[in-house]
């Protein structure tokens, strides 16, 4: 098995995540698809770290995880706030900046 297989897997997972962001309308599912894309990028980083034989890629993947955790916390808080005022978690309903 060539090591590039991990990169193929990463590309496929990233693409699936991108389809999900476009197609799904529940804000929480859209968020999960973004997480999937971040994870796919992490897999590519880890694979490149192995190809290059140093740990920089793993450190970058670690930072990605931290930033993703921050993003999830703030994003879910925004979703809850929108849900509280509009009673809906669909991204189509939140089409106005005003209430």
């Amino acid at each position: 098995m060539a090591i590039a297989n991990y990169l193929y897997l990463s590309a496929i997972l990233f693409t699936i995540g991108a389809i999900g962001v476009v197609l799904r309308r529940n804000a929480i599912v859209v968020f999960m698809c973004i997480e999937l894309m971040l994870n796919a990028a992490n897999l590519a980083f880890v694979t490149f770290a192995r190809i290059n034989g140093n740990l920089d890629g793993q450190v970058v993947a670690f930072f990605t995880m931290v930033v993703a955790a921050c993003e999830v916390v703030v994003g879910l808080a925004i979703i809850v706030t929108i849900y509280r005022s509009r009673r809906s978690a669909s991204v189509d309903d939140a089409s106005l900046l005003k209430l």
Partner: protein
Amino acid sequence: MINLALDVGTTAGPESLLFYFLAPLSILASIGMLLVKKAVHSALLLAWVMISLAIFYIAQDALFLGIVQIVVYTGAVMMLFLFILMLVGVDTSDSLDENIKGLRAIAITAAIGFGGLLVSLIARATFGRETTGLIGANSIGNANAIAEILFTKYVFAFEVVSALLITAAMGAMVLGHSQKSRSKFAQRDLSIARFRKGELKDAAGLPGPGVYALHNAVDVPALLPTGPTSISAVLQARGDIIESSQFQLQVEDEEK
């Protein structure tokens, strides 16, 4: 030291077996994530994808990242997702039908194009060097080696990330804090609203479930003309309603 990558470069043996077993499963799970209707099922499928990615990390000599992936992603982030799903309501499953015309066809075509581009790019790329493997870099242990590089070369980024974490926590607290813009909708307000509805029959409270049937469970609608109004909205959204006519008292004909 766990070292599943026995033969670095052309990863043969156990690692390829692991890959060919887990990679199709994780792709299937991520496709299923797009297709299932309920957000909870999506979350569980995503958790499966994340666990298999953690296994891939460990197989690729990234032991620390694999453990962090399980603890942070499947432990914290997915639990946060499920918690928010619980707050927002399980019944907010979104419809899968498109409301922008042709969006699905366009999105799938674009995604196939994008994915094909990435895959063909990887297939044509040369990596410039032979796969080195991490045996040398991990010689003092993966976590130790990462700590060494994290606190020297990347220490500034590390500090910035800590500021980011604090800001995110503050932001979530500010966003999550709700100031009540109106007083709580109490029993008195409910009563007034009921009388103002127009018809006097609405003035009485809604019937409880099961009261007029021979079965007294919450998922049995009362045998009323209004029918399912006696069932809680959550049960209706989930479809957990039993047909109440089967509990109806069968009046036998007295003439027989």
